[in-house]
Structure formats: structure tokens, C-alpha cells
């Protein structure tokens, strides 16, 4: 993945004004239509074998997350063990995609998932506010990568974005991308709840992809409005259109507020119907979640045994 913009759109990032002209030239979002489409796709009935497939797929897409001030090494190790074997009573359960922790916990997490397919993702760049000097943010990223993080979740500077200083945001993302090096994949968090409009979410998506994001991610999970079907649908449209124009595939990660299997399956329907089957893989689509996994496991147990399960039969995180 080149760190410069793909050449089909190379000229739009030449200067602040061309970038602004491009982003403001993107078609406006029909908010009512978007929400209606997201809602109508949410009414699909996914049952029996399709449901079993969807649940396993969703489990394999979970970025099992703990981002609390009170995180201890013990909690991170427990999380790692759960990511590797989500349901110890049923070894056919797939492992989750990754664990997501703060940079200082990367080494602990890395140790906990060693020998498995589970990756370690780390939030960086002064998460969740993103209000720090660029040099501090880059140091944050480098430390996380040096500790072994496979993926970096960065937050954009929403202040600069909302002030219309798109080039600053662009430059920051490219700098972070560079700091990630060749090994770590970069997820760019827009904090959609703070961008106020759907038009802004579309612009941020394109801006992030132009700057070289490997993933675009809705939110930090730390604000009132997090991932919704509508804003995820909008971002899925953006990655689809971006690939059509440049040939580069970018992943999507809704995060925060997805707590039930039913919600997760609705998101998978959105992915399939919008971006297409190519994205139905944990290399290209993730759920940022913590409590979602337990609900998926309870649903999985229900499908396997025919009995409704309860919270006593999954771990307390």
C-alpha cells in the first residue's frame, strides 16, 4: 500500500484548495434516503444455517476491545485468552480478529495472543480526543508499533476537520501512516458523532482513504453517538466507490454501541448489499466491541443446543 494517494486521484491532494474543492464537490448525502435504506436492509430475516454462518463470521470480525483507564495487565491477558478461544466449552468457535488496547498494554496483549491468528490493535494518537501535538501523536504510534502492534487505530483531528483545514488532517494521517511502517495496518477513526452531518462523514471517509487509510472506522466508543447503520452504510458506499475509482480496497470498522447479535447481523447485511462479498472477511470488515461477543456466543449456544443461554454461561469481562 503506497503512502501517497493513488494516482487516479493524485492531483486532488496537491494543495489545500484542490483538496477542499474535491471534498466539497462530492455529491451531497440524501439523509432521509440513507436512513430509510439502512432501516430497510435491517429488516432482512436471517435464520437457521444463514444465521449460524453470520454469527461465526461476526465472531471472527470482532476487535475485542478494552479501553478503560482501569485496564490492568491481568484484564488484558484475560481478554487475549478470550479472543483466542471465545467459548472454551466449544472449540469450533472461531477466534476473534484482534484485541484492541491502549499502547502501553500492547506488549502484554501480544504475549497473551502469541501463537494464534489474533492480531493486536492499539489505539494511538492521543486517543480518544486527539488533542496533542503531532510529534506526541507520532511518538505514540511508533511506541505501539515497536511494542508489536499489528494495527493502529488513530483518531483524526476533528477540530481541524470541522474548521475546514482538510490538508492538516490529510498530512497528519499520511504522517501516521508513515510511522506505522510496512507492517502495521492503519485504521482511521472519524468520530462520526462529532462530525454533525452525513456530508461531513462522506468527506472524512474520502479524505481518510486518499491519505492512505487501510480501514476507516466510525468512532471511538467514547461519545454519545457511535456506530449507526446509517453512518456505516455511508462509509461502505465510500469504500465501494473508492475501489471503483482507484482499484484500492479499504476496510470498514463500525465501533461502539453494537451490543447484540441481531445488530451485528444487520451490519453484515449492509456490507453484503453495499460493498459486496469481497468485504465479508475480517481483513476488510471489523466490529469494534466488547459486550457484543458475549451475545454472539449466547446466540451460538442457543443455535447449537436449542436452549436459550444466559449470561452465567459466558465470561464476565
Amino acid at each position, binding site marked *: 500500500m503506497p503512502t501517497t494517494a493513488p494516482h487516479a486521484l493524485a492531483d486532488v491532494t496537491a494543495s489545500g484548495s484542490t483538496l477542499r474543492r474535491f471534498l466539497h464537490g462530492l455529491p451531497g448525502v440524501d439523509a432521509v434516503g440513507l436512513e430509510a435504506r439502512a432501516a430497510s436492509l435491517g429488516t432482512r430475516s436471517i435464520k437457521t444455517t444463514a444465521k449460524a454462518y453470520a454469527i461465526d463470521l461476526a465472531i471472527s470480525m470482532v476487535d475485542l476491545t478494552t479501553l478503560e483507564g482501569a485496564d490492568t495487565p491481568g484484564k488484558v491477558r484475560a481478554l487475549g485468552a478470550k479472543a483466542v478461544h471465545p467459548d472454551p466449552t466449544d472449540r469450533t468457535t472461531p477466534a476473534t480478529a484482534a484485541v484492541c488496547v491502549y499502547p502501553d498494554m500492547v506488549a502484554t496483549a501480544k504475549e497473551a495472543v502469541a501463537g494464534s491468528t489474533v492480531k493486536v490493535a492499539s489505539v494511538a494518537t492521543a486517543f480518544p480526543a486527539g488533542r496533542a501535538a503531532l510529534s506526541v501523536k507520532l511518538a505514540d504510534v511508533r511506541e505501539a508499533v515497536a511494542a508489536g502492534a499489528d494495527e493502529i487505530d488513530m483518531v483524526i483531528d476533528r477540530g481541524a476537520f470541522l474548521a475546514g483545514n482538510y490538508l492538516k488532517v490529510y498530512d497528519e494521517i499520511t504522517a501516521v501512516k508513515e510511522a506505522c511502517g510496512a507492517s502495521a495496518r492503519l485504521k482511521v477513526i472519524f468520530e462520526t458523532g462529532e462530525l454533525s452531518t452525513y456530508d461531513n462523514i462522506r468527506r472524512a471517509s474520502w479524505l481518510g482513504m486518499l491519505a492512505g487509510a487501510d480501514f476507516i472506522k466510525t468512532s471511538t466508543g467514547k461519545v454519545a453517538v457511535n456506530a449507526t447503520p446509517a453512518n456505516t452504510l455511508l462509509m461502505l458506499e465510500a469504500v465501494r466507490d473508492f475501489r471503483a475509482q482507484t482499484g484500492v480496497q479499504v476496510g470498514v470498522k463500525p465501533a461502539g454501541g453494537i451490543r447484540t447479535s441481531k445488530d451485528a447481523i444487520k451490519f453484515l447485511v449492509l456490507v453484503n448489499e453495499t460493498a459486496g462479498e469481497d468485504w465479508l472477511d475480517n481483513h476488510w470488515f471489523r466490529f469494534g466491541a466488547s459486550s457484543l461477543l458475549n451475545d454472539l456466543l449466547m446466540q451460538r*449456544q442457543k443455535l447449537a443446543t436449542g436452549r*436459550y443461554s*444466559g449470561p452465567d454461561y459466558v465470561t464476565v469481562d
Partner: protein
Amino acid sequence: MSDRLSVFKTYKLYVGGKFPRSESGRVYEVTDAKGKWLANAPQSSRKDARDAVVAARKAFGGWAGATAYNRGQVLYRVAEMLEGRREQFVREVSDAEGLGKSKAAAVVDAAVDRWVWYAGWTDKIAQVVGGGNPVAGPYFNLSSPEPTGVVAILAPQESSFLGLVSVLAPVIATGNTAIVIASEKSPLPALSLGEVLATSDVPGGVVNVLSGRTAEIAAPLAAHQDVNAIDLAGADDVLAKELEIAAADNLKRVLRPQPVDDWAATPGIDRMTAFLETKTVWHPTGSLGASGSSY
């Protein structure tokens, strides 16, 4: 005013403090004792049962953690609200069970008195079934009753109101939360009781009322891993056996159907102790160290 349009009541379920229709969209016809149509009641599905369990589980911590005194006040408040709706319940019980006005009124009064009776028990049951145990060592040894958890109740089929109250009140008086399957033939008093509970101080989810085919709703509840106990009062022999087998799979407490000749008789505390667990703690009292200090 003879040309006034009649206002029919839509009976709904009571789950998590709200009044949903059945998730399945189904209803079934409820008739009075003579077969005359009374209303359409929701016919719950297993998903309604599942939702009710989620609501009951969510409410359990708060209700079990409330002081016994507070639970007593709340239950007494239910009796107050019932008293205010006396006419309605007399009519519903009279329709459902084919009783005359005065007999139905006696049944409703007995049911209100039953609430009051159990309301009084909330802060007394611990003294009766718990207490200090004599042990041969320097310890306090204390046993206290604790609620079992989420209890599924198959309400009695014949006594649609007094029977219902007699099985429901003891379960929640001790701090359990309940999912009640109303009498299949006459669910209306139970569904109206939901409206009373919603306007009392009972937190949403402590009592959840489902109507429909008893066997259909009870099966997923008996097998549900997150239901701690089941009261089979309203099950016939065949159904009771089936449900007990399903419940054994996940180690539920099961209260088998007990023959009851007269629901109005003083019930005793058996229905409360059926859904209580005894917790015993040891607390050292003697000298702990060389200094000889105690505590």
C-alpha cells in the same frame, strides 16, 4: 347517548414495565364461562418469553437488593391500587369464572388481602427461616434466606385471579423476579394485573405477564439457562412431567403442581420458602491473635 361507540379494550402483555403486543402478532379469542366472546388476548411466542427473561434478569439485582421493608411497602401499594380497580376485577373474575357478583367480589377481596398478607411477610421471613446457628467454635454462624433469581410461574388455570396472586406474590415478596404465564382460558385478570403493577411502585421487569398457550410458552422457559426456577402450578400432569425433565437439564428449582382445594385458605409460607436459598456465613468472634483481641 345511546348511539355512543363502544370502546373496546386492547389487552396487551406486560414485559419490562411496558405493554407490548406479542412479537408474533398473534392473538386468540378469550370467552367467558358460557362461551361468549370477551376480548382478544395476545398469544405469546417463545421470543416473548425470551424478552421477558431478559427483562426479569435485568430487574433482579435492584429488586433483590431492595430492603425487605421497601419491598413490603411496594407490595402494599399494589394492594392499594387493586382496591381502586375493584369494580373492574370483580367484572373480569365474574366473566372468567362464571361467578355471581357477590362471589366474584369475595374472590377479589381475598386476592387484595393476599397481597397485604405477603406484603407483611417481606421483612419477617428472614427471622422465621434464617437465624443464628449454634456451632462448636469461636464463630457467629448465620443463615439468611436469599432469593433464587428469575422464576417462571405457570399460573393456575382455574382460579384466574386469586390463584394467580397466590402464586405470584410469594415469589416477588422474597426478592425474586417473575415471568407469569396467565391462565390460558382466562388471562384477562392477569393482563389487567399488569396495568395495576405498572401504576404501583413495582419496578419494570420485576413481574412480566404473558398470555397464550401455556405449553408453548412454558417449554422454552423450562429449558432456558437463565431462568433459575419454575413453578408448575398451572401445568397438567403430562406437561408438568415434560417441563420438569427440561428443567432438570439446567438444574432449575422446580415446584411441582400442588393440589389446592380452596385458594382462599391461609397459604402458609411454603410458597415463599420454595424460592429461597439459604446462605450461611461463618464469622470469627474469638481471640484472633496473641494480643487476645476479639473482632
